[in-house]
């Protein structure tokens, strides 16, 4: 340990990484307990069978919905809504602060809601529980504001990784959706937290992947066309799902306060009524996804289940019941994928692979379409299935679903939810889509009036007649510097002696550099040389501060357009 004088045995970076590991372990333990709590709740309410007893299937979600609403409204108001957005809010608004009561509230209310059959998943709450644990630990350790902000996403990655048993997808999701940038420090911490939480989760709950996907082999390249069709259908299904939440949630939110106590119960009652005929739509539904992957259902049933799950999830989520969208998204994807595969099998029996492969690819496609995390969706499918052979269909379907969803529903669901909640959180998808302004967009072509050569300076009267007070000058070494008009004239008059001293060394930029780089480098210099990357002595352009500002002014409005709230 450190001495009383504070001598450090570990560097700051190492301490931070060590803390990430501990947070990962902590979050992993919390998620293990959370999952056990959900299962235990379900056993208590419905017994041990997959199909709940018909006598309880309507009653339980309704009654438990009342209890959940009471707890949420009276004791844990912050547990409503998406855990992803609440973690983003902690990062961007509340300096990494997530109250301890939110962790407890999310744990209890989500376990009750999901265990009683509300059509929601445990991953989103797990993510928030992980972030909350990290925030709590960070506050106890009195981390700096900046580090406290960072520690919440680290915990979020740990929570999500433990919930899905997918460390890589969790890291990608947090980077892609929550933090939005890659830096070595953040990445290292997130990876360590995710890995340590998954180790804990596997220690307690086993290492098997979420699904035992049947074997897949691409029989012919033509089969990829079938997966492309799946991508299109998944894109449309994503749009229906997001639009439904977009319409229903604000409508329910403005109802009188007393009615909020009954909304989760009403949603539970409706889901219970659906569950009498189709119990598959209740709860997270992982077992039924597994069954869909093993050809248990006909394509008609799969289609019905997809539609009913969309309805049930929209009801549960919009009613303010705590719980996540990840598992329902995967469920809808599995059913849509299986249904599309079933239809294609009917039409082209020799062309279609196993339905399980379609269900699996469908999961990824809906994940890409609804949650709009295309990279995560690919790796998630690989990790939950443990099957790398399926990567080509996954990439094709996910890309198409993502593009279709984006074109039909420009605002991603997390941004939509945050704006409905009155928060203006940064949209990472929109950030990704922002065109980067580059030096080549702002620079001018070099002219003899601006760019001079030290070994061929014009006579003083010519220099005197040139516009401007500052010039780019190519030194004898070939490198570009800068000099004032007065110094240049003095240099010519002195016959060239002291030339190197008269020329200032200037930073340079390249045409493909972002304008932000040029802004940082230009400092107080009136001009910056833009040089070729392969030939540093070749001047390809000249840049001044006015050029940069003018370019931002002309091309800037796109940012404002994108930032307009959707609702």
């Amino acid at each position, binding site marked *: *340990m450190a001495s009383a004088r504070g001598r450090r045995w570990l560097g700051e970076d190492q301490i931070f990484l060590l803390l990430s590991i501990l947070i990962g372990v902590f979050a992993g333990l919390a998620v293990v307990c959370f999952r056990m709590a959900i299962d235990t709740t379900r056993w208590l309410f419905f017994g041990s069978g997959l199909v709940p007893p018909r006598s309880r299937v309507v009653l339980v979600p309704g009654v438990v919905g009342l209890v959940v609403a009471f707890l949420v409204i009276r004791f844990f108001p912050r547990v409503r809504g998406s855990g992803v957005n609440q973690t983003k809010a902690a990062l961007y608004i509340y300096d990494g602060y997530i109250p301890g009561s939110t962790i407890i509230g999310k744990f209890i209310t989500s376990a009750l809601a999901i265990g009683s059959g509300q059509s929601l998943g445990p991953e989103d709450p797990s993510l928030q529980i992980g972030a909350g644990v990290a925030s709590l630990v960070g506050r106890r350790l009195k981390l700096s504001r900046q580090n406290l902000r*960072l520690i919440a996403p680290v915990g979020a990655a740990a929570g999500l990784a433990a919930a899905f048993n997918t460390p890589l997808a969790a890291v990608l999701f947090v980077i892609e959706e929550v933090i939005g940038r890659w830096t070595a420090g953040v990445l290292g911490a997130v990876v360590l937290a995710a890995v340590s939480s998954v180790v804990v989760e596997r220690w307690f709950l086993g290492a098997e992947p979420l699904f035992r996907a*049947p074997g897949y082999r691409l029989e012919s390249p033509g089969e990829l066309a079938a997966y492309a069709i799946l991508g299109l259908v998944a894109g449309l299904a994503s749009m229906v799902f997001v639009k439904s939440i977009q319409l229903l949630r604000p409508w329910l939110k403005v109802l009188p306060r007393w009615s909020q106590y009954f909304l989760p119960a009403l949603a539970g009652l409706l889901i219970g009524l659906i569950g009498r005929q189709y119990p598959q739509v209740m709860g997270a539904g992982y077992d039924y996804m597994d069954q869909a992957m093993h050809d248990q259902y006909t394509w008609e049933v799969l289609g019905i289940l997809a539609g009913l799950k969309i309805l049930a999830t929209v009801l549960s989520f919009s009613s303010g019941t705590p719980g996540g969208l990840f598992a329902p998204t995967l469920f809808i994807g599995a059913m849509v994928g299986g249904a599309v595969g079933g239809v294609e099998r009917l039409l082209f029996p020799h062309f279609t692979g196993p339905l399980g492969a379609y269900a699996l690819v469908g999961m990824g496609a809906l994940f890409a379409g609804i949650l709009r995390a295309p990279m995560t969706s690919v790796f998630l499918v690989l990790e939950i299935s443990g099957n790398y052979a399926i990567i080509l269909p996954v990439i094709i379907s996910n890309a198409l679903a993502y593009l279709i969803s984006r074109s039909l529903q420009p605002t991603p669901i997390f941004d939509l939810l945050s704006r409905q909640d009155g928060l203006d959180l940064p949209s990472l998808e929109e950030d990704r889509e922002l065109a980067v302004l580059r030096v080549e967009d702002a620079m001018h072509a070099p002219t003899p009036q601006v760019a001079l050569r030290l070994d061929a300076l014009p006579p003083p009267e010519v220099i005197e007649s040139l516009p401007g007070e500052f010039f780019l000058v190519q030194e004898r070494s070939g490198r570009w510097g800068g000099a004032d008009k007065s110094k240049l004239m003095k240099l010519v008059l002195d016959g060239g002696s002291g030339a190197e001293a008269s020329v200032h060394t200037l930073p340079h930029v390249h045409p493909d550099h972002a304008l932000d780089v040029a802004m940082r480098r230009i400092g107080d210099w009136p001009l910056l040389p833009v040089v070729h990357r392969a030939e540093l002595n070749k001047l390809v352009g000249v840049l001044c501060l006015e050029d940069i500002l003018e370019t931002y002014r002309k091309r800037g409005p796109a940012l404002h357009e994108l930032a307009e709230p959707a609702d």
Partner: protein
Amino acid sequence: MVRRFNVIPREYLLLAALVAVIVVFFSATTFAARAYHRKQEQFGAMWYERGQGALRQSRPADAVLDFRNALAYSRDNDEYRLRLAQALMADHRSEEARSHLLALWEKQPGDGTLNLELARLAATWKDTPQAVRYYHAAIYGVWPEEPTSRRWQIRFELSKYLLERDTPADTKAAQAELVALAGVLPPQDADLQMQLGTLFVRANLYPRALTAFQAALAERPNFMPALEAASETAFHLGDYSAARNYLLPIVTQKPKDEHFLELLNLSELVMKLDPSERGLSSQEQARRAAKDIHIATARAQKCAPADTGVAMLVAQAKDLQRTERTLASNPEALRKTMDLAFRLEKASASCAPASLEDKALGLVAQPQEVPR
């Protein structure tokens, strides 16, 4: 930002405290997880037992639900998944069963049971190449209990499947499987030899079938199914002497069984009428030939008024009237006589009922598969 993270000694203490909290939390979670897993195992075992019971009571649909429930509590339990697949097959839901079996097969491609179930599925779908591939994988696969007898039974099953396909190529493949099986089956196991012989008969390998039945009878001389099969096979092969030997005890035990009684009578008649039987004197050959032409002419005369072709043959027979002495001294005359007798029998087949003697003469006319 990470670089600005200022560490003070107090934070080390807090880290140590955090580790202590984690240790406590870990212990509590371990305790809870044990109880949770115990419960899961109980539920899994309970549903598994229910499924087994449902299967035993031939309620595969219920068994499917039960095994699904069991599998939900132990997703990685191959035994549960296999039973689920078997229940699905019993419930004629082969697509679902196949999917589960393939998932298991990917983990254990050399498992005998899995390959056998997949072979049966492929056989259900008439996918012969796949079925044969899985059957062979099952034969050479891993069987924890009684591997040898399992392999024999699978080869029997494969042979039966191929014979049911009833194409020349599949029959040939079945013959190869049966020949391979004959080489490894213990000759002292009468039941297996009986099974083998029966399949050899279906595969048209009568001599091998007779050998198998004989092996069965060597072990159990009064094994009635083997006696019956051996008698019929010997009869089919034209070995009427052997057939008679097998038929005598059958008829003794089943005196009212008309089929075997007729076979016995036919066998004895053939043995009396066949002039080509080994070891006969020329006089006896001539006597038999003369009797044969007499039997054939008698039947043909019933047709002659209505059938000019038969009438011509009857006329030829009358022209060819030879004494037994002539026939005994002239093998060519004997051959022509027998040839005419066969032609007469053949020509009158459609117009006059065949007596037992006519039937026996017909059998004498058949080309022989094994030398008598």
